[in-house]
Each structure stands twice: as structure tokens, then as C-alpha cells.
């Protein structure tokens, strides 16, 4: 009994020493995958492309600074499913592929439109290393592999740059949205909601983008830009939304963070730019005799950012009139988007989900026919209110003085 304690200490030590560190992985045994792309080749097999970070070239520091060599290396391989592509790639890479820091999943246009994205996501959700907060984007007019191989100048890791680009576009344009694996899966499984995934395309010759010269130039010839929102139906890409339609969709789904609108004033087109600071959208759904009635109400708050005609912005009545005009503009956008979606027969707004919430019993009956029958014929009422809170550092534009 006297030495019992030391025995327990001994057990613990022997446990730790003997147990041989099964899950131990030193950092220089790992290849950090920053992005993963899915393509389809001619044979109809998946092609997985892996963008792997070369830490030494990214972090700089003592090793003499990055910039000389590419900060990433791209590998790709084909396979029948995603795991198989990984298996083939890992033979080419000298280290274990490590996904916990994967920030981006790129799905090529081809996969999305031909095979659909429904079956892609199980691995991402199931595997421990993937985080379900990883962003998903589509490619447009190029393959996913090309997209991953383009070097970028600001963020040394291209995946990071794509994500940041998208974030910037989401926060200022209101035409794009960041979407994560979680969101995609949730909208895939709920029948009253279809995913909307932002797309990127390459400007310039993709091959040139893989060279260091591209990013050493002050005006890189090859860049990546966000380009449209992909609309899905039953997991397949069917259409692209751009510009006002895209924004209208996002208005209706409460995703717009900030954007600017131009309105016609005094018969001059795009005379006043209104900058939205925040907005709130509410969707209410009702079923009247099995006919869905959706009402959307949008409230936006913002400021006047630019004026190109003279007008008396100190007058509250003028502001009220502008507000009305802005509201009309937003309403038009939303209606356009809804019209577009109804033609596509794809409920990207989650109206079905709203009905599900308010009428769970009836929803079960109409669920299967929602996209094709009920959604295109549903009554949709859009109500928009816009508020102007302030007009910046000046009240009236100098243009009003010019006129006098």
C-alpha cells in the first residue's frame, strides 16, 4: 500500500511512453491543402485538384523571404470518387495531405451542370479534418484546375485571395454571397430551398497565370474575378444570375450586406447613388386553398453617396421622394429576380421553407411538387421601404451652385 501512488505514476508514465503517439504528426510531415477543386474529365471521372501551401515561400521570415518561388503547388488526379482522387494525389506528394485548413472548395461548371453537386458533399461533412465552414464557389468558363493554379499577388495563397475577393464583393456589391458547406447541404436537403453559389472566372490566359512573372507585373495579365451566382435545381446547375437579378435574389433572401443603387432623378438616369448600409428582409408565407401566398418585406437603411444633378437634399420632402424612388428600384429588382426564378422553376429564395415553417402539415403534401408546380404559380407580394439617414459631409451638391 505504501508505494501505491508511485505505482500509479508509473502506470501513467508507462502508458504515455509505450503508447507510442498514434496520432502524432509533425508539421513537416504535413502538406497543408488550402483549396480543393472538383472537375470532370472526358471519361466522366472526377478530377480532384489540390492546392498545397509551401509554407517557406509564404511566410518569408528567416528563410530569405518568399516571392522567389511559387507559394503553392497544385496537384491533380482522377478517380471514381473524391477519396480516390486524394489517394492518387498523395502518391505524388511526399507528405500527408492535411485538410483542416482548407478554406475553399471549387466546383467546376462542368461537374455542377452535368453530374450535379448532390453527391459531392458527404466526404466534406463526414471527414474530421474538413470544416463545414469551408467556402464553396463555382468556376465559370474555365476548369477548376486552372482556377486553382493561378497565382495571386495580394494574398500569397490563391484560395485565400478568392475567399477574400468574395467576401469583399459580398460586403460591397450585394450581388454575391459567401456560402459554406453547411449552407449548401442544408439547402440541398430542404426541398423548399435551392442553393445559390457564387462563381469565379479567370480573366486572361490561364496558362500564364501559373507563372511567377504574372504576379511580378504591376498589372497582372491573369486575374480571378467573381462572376455571377449559380442557380441550382435538383442539385444541378441550370442558370447564372448576374447584376440586378442576382442582387434582387439576395435582397429577398436577406443576404445583402451593403450595396449601392442608382436611381433616376429629374429624368436623368442614374442620377443619385444610394448606398445601403443595412437591410432587413422578412418573408411571411401563407397557404390559401393550397395556393401559396408569399409576402416579402424589405427595409433598407442607407445614405446618399453621390449626386449628379442639382437637388435640394436639405428638404425632407425631397429625401422622402428619393426614398420612394429607391424603394421602387429595389422592388423592381426583387420582382425581376422572382420572375426569373419562377421561369427557372427553382426556389432559390427559401419560400418553400417558409411555408414549411408556417404550415408543416400541408407542406408534406405539396413538398414534392413545390418547385415545378406551386412555386412558379405562387402569389408573391413585395413590400419595400427605404430610408435615407444622412447625406455625407455636404448637404447639397456643388452642382446646385453651378446652376444658379
Amino acid at each position: 500500500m505504501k508505494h501505491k501512488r508511485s505505482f500509479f505514476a508509473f502506470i501513467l508514465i508507462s502508458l504515455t511512453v509505450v503508447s507510442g503517439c498514434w496520432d502524432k504528426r509533425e508539421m513537416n510531415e504535413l502538406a497543408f491543402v488550402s483549396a480543393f477543386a472538383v472537375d470532370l474529365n472526358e471519361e466522366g471521372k472526377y478530377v480532384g485538384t489540390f492546392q498545397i501551401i509551401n509554407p517557406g515561400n509564404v511566410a518569408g521570415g528567416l528563410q530569405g523571404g518568399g516571392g522567389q518561388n511559387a507559394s503553392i503547388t497544385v496537384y491533380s488526379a482522377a478517380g471514381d470518387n473524391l477519396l480516390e482522387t486524394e489517394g492518387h494525389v498523395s502518391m505524388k506528394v511526399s507528405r500527408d495531405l492535411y485538410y483542416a485548413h482548407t478554406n475553399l472548395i471549387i466546383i467546376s461548371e462542368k461537374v455542377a451542370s452535368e453530374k450535379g453537386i448532390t453527391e459531392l458533399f458527404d466526404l466534406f461533412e463526414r471527414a474530421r479534418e474538413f470544416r463545414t465552414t469551408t467556402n464553396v464557389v463555382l468556376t465559370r468558363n474555365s476548369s477548376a484546375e486552372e482556377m486553382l493554379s493561378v497565382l495571386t499577388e495580394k494574398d500569397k495563397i490563391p484560395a485565400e485571395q478568392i475567399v477574400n475577393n468574395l467576401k469583399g464583393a459580398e460586403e460591397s456589391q450585394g450581388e454575391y454571397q459567401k456560402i459554406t458547406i453547411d449552407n449548401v447541404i442544408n439547402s440541398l436537403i430542404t426541398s423548399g430551398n435551392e442553393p445559390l453559389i457564387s462563381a469565379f472566372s479567370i480573366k486572361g490566359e490561364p496558362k500564364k497565370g501559373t507563372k511567377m512573372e504574372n504576379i511580378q507585373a504591376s498589372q497582372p495579365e491573369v486575374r480571378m474575378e467573381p462572376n455571377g451566382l449559380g442557380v441550382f435545381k435538383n442539385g444541378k446547375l441550370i442558370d447564372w444570375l448576374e447584376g440586378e437579378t442576382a442582387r434582387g435574389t439576395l435582397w429577398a433572401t436577406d443576404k445583402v450586406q451593403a450595396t449601392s443603387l442608382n436611381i433616376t432623378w429629374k429624368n436623368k438616369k442614374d442620377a443619385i447613388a444610394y448606398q445601403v448600409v443595412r437591410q432587413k428582409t422578412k418573408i411571411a408565407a401563407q397557404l390559401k386553398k393550397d395556393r401559396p401566398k408569399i409576402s416579402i418585406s424589405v427595409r433598407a437603411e442607407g445614405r446618399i453617396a453621390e449626386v449628379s444633378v442639382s437637388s435640394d437634399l436639405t428638404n425632407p420632402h425631397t429625401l422622402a421622394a428619393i426614398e420612394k424612388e429607391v424603394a421602387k428600384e429595389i422592388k423592381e429588382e426583387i420582382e425581376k429576380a422572382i420572375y426569373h426564378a419562377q421561369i427557372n422553376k427553382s426556389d432559390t429564395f427559401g419560400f418553400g421553407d417558409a411555408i414549411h415553417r408556417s404550415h408543416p402539415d400541408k407542406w408534406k403534401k405539396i413538398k414534392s411538387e413545390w418547385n415545378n408546380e406551386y412555386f412558379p404559380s405562387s402569389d408573391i407580394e413585395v413590400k419595400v421601404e427605404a430610408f435615407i439617414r444622412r447625406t455625407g459631409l455636404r448637404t447639397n451638391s456643388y452642382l446646385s451652385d453651378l446652376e444658379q
Partner: protein
Amino acid sequence: MKILWIAALLLGLLLSYAVGLNYVLGFNLNKSLAKTMNPFRVMEIAEFIVFLVLIFFLFLNPVRTFFKKEKK
């Protein structure tokens, strides 16, 4: 020693519960037995050593008290 017997009895009953439960769930007797034992089938060397160490400590105390009694 008594403690070890109690422990053995308890372990035996627990294992038979596990086997019985498998049986109730619709596996036949052989399969039930195999299902109960198969977690121990794939063991690494290190794991096995830890296992042995644990068993060693299980017997250490009773054996020592036994010898102490002998001496007295």
C-alpha cells in the same frame, strides 16, 4: 484474493450480458460471442503492453498481501 474473485464474477456476468444482448438483437450465438470478443482482436504491440501492465497491477496487490500473510 476475495476482491479478485468478485471482480472476475462481475466481469463474467457483464460479458454474458453483452453476449446475451447481441443474441436478443438477432445474432446467433456464435456471432454474438465473436462480436463481444472482436474488439480485442486487432491490437498493436504497444497497446498490448499497456494491457499487460494493467493486468499486472491488477494482480500485484493481492499477490503481495498473500505473500505478506505467508511470512507472518
